[in-house]
């Protein structure tokens, strides 16, 4: 369920330029993940840090395997 919530949050971010701006500029992943969870919660969308880490790992995997 929280993964579905995270996906919902991700779609919201992709449609909201100021929100995107507020999440850019992080270079430390721990800080970034904490901010993403916090921002989702502030909007009433609950998901865990692990959901975010998992999504980042999956995107990284897709990028690395792009030639396969």
């Amino acid at each position, binding site marked *: 369920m929280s993964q579905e919530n995270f996906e919902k949050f*991700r779609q919201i971010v992709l449609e909201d330029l100021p929100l*995107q701006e507020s999440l*850019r500029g*992080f*270079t430390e992943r721990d800080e*970034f993940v904490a901010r*993403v969870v916090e921002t989702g919660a502030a909007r009433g969308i609950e998901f865990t840090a692990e959901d975010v880490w998992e999504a*980042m790992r999956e995107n990284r995997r897709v990028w690395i395997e792009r030639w396969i």
Partner: protein
Amino acid sequence: MDITEKFQDWTPVRVYWHENRPFVDWCYMGATRFTQPFFDNTVEWQMTQPFNLLFRHQTPLEVLGELNERNPGLEPTGFVFHMSRCGSTLVAQMLASPARNIVMSEPPPVDSILRANTKNDLVTDEQRARWLKWIVGALGQRRRDEKYYFIKFDSWNTIDLDLIRRAFPQTPWIFLYRNPVEVLVSQMRERGAQMIPGAIGQILPGLDFMETLQMPPEEYCARVLARFCQSAINGAASENARFVNYNQLPEAVTAEMLEHFRVDYSPEDIECIETAAQFNSKTPWLTFAPDSEAKRKQASEAVLQAAEKWLVPLYDELESIRRRKLI
């Protein structure tokens, strides 16, 4: 939200197929210029940013068409084709050095579109040409105040030169080539993907996969290079075509190449381009050192024979065309 606003500062970085339809992966690039030796090097760095690891648009390819209608991007100033291992990355790095230039060096989304018919054999040449215009437009968006826009294609895209020319009939292009023994020696040392049978589809027409696998590597590589050179020769009659030999580099970039591409640079820009020529293009922290003689000395008998049989006649023809075009 308006579609151009939504994708402002996002770049298509990958074209992929899902349920027989082409899709695009986008990466937020902001004002980042593509200055690394290859398109993917610049994207790779962006992909390490936490935001980009988590958030990316994924859209059907047709979104590129909608964007192209609203904002077609810069018209390409020039195209660079090449036979591989012949100085094309040096040329791309030189062109990328002035901030007024956008240079896309072997962008995989362009290659994916040109080879879309290998993913789905229902894709027509007309579709490929239309999609090519879309992706070229999307990659040619101004990030600052760029004026000129160059694309260096993958070597094997030379096979599609005719289709590319039909999509961009006004765009001047060059074909870079080099002494075939030197290119073959380099490929034998470390083969590019195009030199591995089947890795980039079927490059040699009329031969099945097993035949190409059984072929000596020197012969396979020589025949692949011959296909690229022949394709360039087939387009030589065009006024937009110019041929440049590796041994004319780097001077040819600031002389005849810029003239051919009809660009006008300030003395500062020229200095910037010339400075870029001093470094090794693929490892820019090293200085450039010519290696033609060393490569020829390393040539095996098999390399010499393959070059003689499959490439030397084409090389002679390329040289003859190049000289004719200078008159």
